[in-house]
C-alpha cells in the first residue's frame, strides 16, 4: 500500500471535502404545512377541551322546559342544579329537552379527544408488544398472527358493539372496545418492520457484540419502528374518534347522559328537518377534528417515513 504517497493527497479526497449538513427531523417537521395546519387546529381543540368551563358554557346536563328547541343565537332561561333560573344565550341553539347545544358540543370535545388519543395509545402499546414478539420469536409468529387474522376478519364496528354490550357502556369500555380491532393492524405493521430491521447489519453487529436478545429488541429494533408507528397512531386516533361517534349515534356507545358528538347527533336526528343545528354543529366539530388529525398524520408520514419522503 502506497500510504505515504497517498497522504499528501488526502485533503483532495472528495469525502474529506464533504461536510454533512442534513436537516434534522425537527426542522423538516416545521417546514411541512400540513403538520403545521393539523397541529394548530388540534392544539386549538385541546385548549377548547381543557377550557370548556370558561368558554361561556353551562353544565351540559342542565335543561329548562321553557327553552326547548331554540334556534342558534336566541336567549332563553336555563335552570341550574340548585334550582335558580338564569338568562342564557344559546349560541348553537337548544335541543328538545332545552339543553344548550353549545355547552354540550364543547364538553363533547373532551370525550372525543380522550377517546381518540387513548385508543391510539392502547392499540399501539398492545400492537408493539405483539408485533415485537411475533417478529422476534419466530415460533410464536404463526399462532399469534393467525389469531390476529381472525380478529381482522370481523368488522371493527361489530367487535366494538359486542364488547360494549358485554362489558356495559362506560368511557373505559368504549376505549378498549375501539382499540381492540385496531390491534391486529398495528401488530402486522410492527411485525413487518421488525422482520426488515432484524436483518440490518447493525442488528447483526449487536449480536456479534454479545448483546442479549431483549436488549437488541428494545435498544436497536424498537427505536427504529417509532416513526411509522407515530404515523399509524394518528390514523388510529382519527378512526377512534369516528367510531366513538358512530357507536354513540347508534345508541350502543357512551350512555346518553355523557355529552358526546355522537349522542348529540343521535338525539337531534329525529328533528333534523326542522332543527338541523342539533346535528350540524357537532357534525362540523367531528369533521374538522378528524380532518385535522388526518392532515397531521399525512404530514408526519411525508417527513418521518423514509419511503414516502422521496416524493419531494
Amino acid at each position: 500500500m502506497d500510504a505515504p504517497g497517498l497522504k499528501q493527497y488526502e485533503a483532495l479526497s472528495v469525502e474529506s471535502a464533504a461536510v454533512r449538513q442534513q436537516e434534522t427531523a425537527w426542522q423538516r417537521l416545521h417546514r411541512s404545512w400540513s403538520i403545521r395546519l393539523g397541529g394548530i387546529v388540534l392544539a386549538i381543540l385541546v385548549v377548547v377541551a381543557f377550557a370548556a368551563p370558561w368558554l361561556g358554557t353551562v353544565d351540559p346536563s342542565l335543561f329548562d322546559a321553557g327553552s326547548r328547541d331554540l334556534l342558534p343565537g336566541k336567549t332563553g332561561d336555563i335552570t341550574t342544579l340548585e334550582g335558580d333560573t338564569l338568562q342564557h344565550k344559546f349560541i348553537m341553539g337548544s335541543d328538545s329537552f332545552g339543553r344548550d347545544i353549545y355547552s354540550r358540543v364543547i364538553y363533547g370535545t373532551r370525550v372525543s379527544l380522550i377517546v381518540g388519543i387513548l385508543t391510539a395509545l392502547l392499540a399501539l402499546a398492545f400492537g408493539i408488544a405483539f408485533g415485537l414478539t411475533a417478529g422476534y420469536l419466530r415460533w410464536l409468529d404463526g399462532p399469534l398472527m393467525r389469531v390476529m387474522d381472525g380478529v381482522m376478519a370481523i368488522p371493527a364496528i361489530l367487535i366494538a358493539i359486542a364488547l360494549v354490550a358485554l362489558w356495559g357502556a362506560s368511557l373505559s369500555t368504549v376505549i378498549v372496545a375501539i382499540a381492540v380491532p385496531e390491534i391486529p393492524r398495528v401488530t402486522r405493521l410492527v411485525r413487518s418492520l421488525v422482520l426488515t430491521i432484524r436483518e440490518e447489519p447493525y442488528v447483526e453487529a449487536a449480536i456479534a457484540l454479545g448483546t442479549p436478545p431483549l436488549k437488541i429488541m428494545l435498544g436497536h429494533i424498537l427505536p427504529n419502528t417509532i416513526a411509522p408507528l407515530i404515523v399509524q397512531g394518528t390514523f388510529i386516533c382519527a378512526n377512534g374518534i369516528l367510531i366513538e361517534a358512530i357507536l354513540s349515534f347508534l345508541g350502543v356507545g357512551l350512555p346518553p347522559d355523557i355529552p358526546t358528538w355522537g349522542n348529540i347527533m343521535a338525539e337531534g336526528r329525529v328533528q333534523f328537518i326542522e332543527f338541523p343545528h342539533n346535528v350540524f354543529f357537532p357534525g362540523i366539530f367531528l369533521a374538522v377534528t378528524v380532518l385535522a388529525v388526518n392532515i397531521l398524520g399525512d404530514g408526519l408520514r411525508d417527513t418521518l417515513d423514509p419511503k414516502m419522503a422521496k416524493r419531494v
Partner: protein
Amino acid sequence: MSVLEVRGLTIALPSASDRKEAVSKVSFSVERGEIVCLVGESGSGKSVIAQGIMGLLPHTLPITAGEVLLEGEDTARASAERQRALRAARMSMIFQEPMTALNPVMTCGEQIDEVLVEHTKLSAQERRAKILDIVREVRLPDPERMVASYPHQLSGGQRQRIVIAMALVLDPVLLIADEPTTALDVTTQAQILALIRDLQARHGTGVLFITHDFGVVAEIAHRVAVLRLGELVELGTRDEVLKRPRHDYTRMLIAAVPTLQPHGRTADATSPVVLETRNLDKTYLDRSWLAHRREVPAAKNVSISVRRGQTLGIVGESGSGKSTVARCIVRLIDPSAGEIRVHGEDIAALKQRSLRPFRRKVQIVFQDPYRSLNPRRKVGEAIIEGPLNHGVPRAQALERARRLMELVRMDAAALDRYPHQFSGGQRQRICIARALATEPELLIADEAVSALDVSVQAQVLALLEEIRTRLELAMLFITHDLRVAAQICDHIAVMSKGEVVEYGPAQEIFRAPKHEYTQALFSAAPGRGFVFGAA
C-alpha cells in the same frame, strides 16, 4: 461532427445542498466510434451529466447554463416530445442494475418490441426478426427462448445483455452506459465489457461510459474525463490520463488504485493459530409445505486457518459462499456440520448463552457503512455497547472509545454525534472502532471496503493494515476484488459454488494460479496488465 458535444454544462442543486451546482461548466465531446469514460467518486456528478444528456433530470436539478449537442441538435432545450423521439432512436442508456431496468411482468421480447413499436412503423414480422437479430448480436444463447423469458428467469449477465439489446436495437449514435458492470461478477463483467467494445466498434456508436473503476477504464476507454465535485479536472486520452496524470486529484485517485502485484511480506509460519475451521458445512433447507424438501448447500467442506498477525483472504464471486463462511464463524448463522476452533476450542455447536465470552474475541465489519450503524444511537453508545456487554464499567469503556477514535483517525467529538452526520468512509472507521472495542483477536472484514470510493478505500485499507500490525490481530478478509486481496492478504482461499477450490500463500496464487476457476477469475480482472502511472 461529434456525436455528442457538451459545452459548459451547468446543473444547479437544490438550495439546501452542500454545494451550489451538481455539475459546473463541464465541456467534452464524444466522437463517432469512440468510448469516453467519465470517472469520478460518488457525488462527483457523473450520473447527473448522463441524465442531463438524456433529458431525464428531475425538476429539482435544472440545467442553468451550457448546451448538450447530439449531432448538432441541442437536446437539453428540446421539447419533451422531441426528447422522447430522440431517446432510444438516436441516444440510449443502460443502467447499473439490469433487474430494475427491466419490467418484471413483461417478457424480454415484449420489452424490446415496445421500443420498436414506439419508434418504428415495422410490421410484427419485421419486428420479430429484428428482435431475434439483436438478441443474437448480444450473444445470448437460444434467442427464441430468451425472447420468451421473463427477466427473473435470466442471470444478471443475461439480463444486462437484454438491456444492451434494447438500447442498441434502433442503432443509436450515442450509447450512455452508467456503471453497467458494477453490479456484476468480475467474470461476467469482463464478458459484458468485451461485448460493449465489440458492438460499439461494429456499429460505430459513440459511447459515454460512466464508471468509478479504474480497472474498467484501462480496459475500455479511448479517452477519459475525470470529475471532482461537479468539475471536470482532467480530460485526455487513456494513456495520458492513466499513465501521466496532470491534475493532483487524478494522481491521488490513480495512486489509490491497488495493484494486482501481491505485497512481498512473508508470513511467519510459527505464529499461533487463532482460528481454524474443519470441514465446515452450511446447508439451507428449503422447507415448504407440501413441496419436497430441498437442500441448498451454501458452503461445503471449508477448512481454513488464520494465524495471529496475519490476514487470510477469501476471494470469490457472489454466491460462492464466502460470506456464509464468515457469518458461520461469527455464529450469526449456525453451521450445519464441521468445527470452528478459536484458540483450539470448538465453538460450532455452542448455545447462544455459552457463546457470549467467545463473542468478545471475534468481531466483524460489514460491507454497507450506511446500514451498519443504528441511526438512532450516538456513535459513542455504539462503540461502548460491546465492552458494556462484557462487563467493562462505563467510564472505562468510554475512555477506551476515545482511544479507539484516535486509532481510527477520528475526532473524539464524533462520539456525541449521530451516524447520519458522517460520510461512508468515516462510518466504516466507526464500525472498525466498534469492532475493536471488545479487544478481539480475530477481525473479520466482510467486503468492508467494497462500497467505498477508491481514495477512501485506500485509506481504510491502510488503516486496517496498521491496526493488524499494531494489535497483532488475525484478520479474515472477504472480498470479490482481487486488487484489494493482493494488497492485504498473506494467504488466500478462492471459493466457488460453496467450496474452496484453491488455498495457499497469496504470492504463489497470484504468481501461478492452479485451479481453472482461479485462472478465469484472474484473467477477468479488469485492467490486468495495465501499468498505471506513478503518483
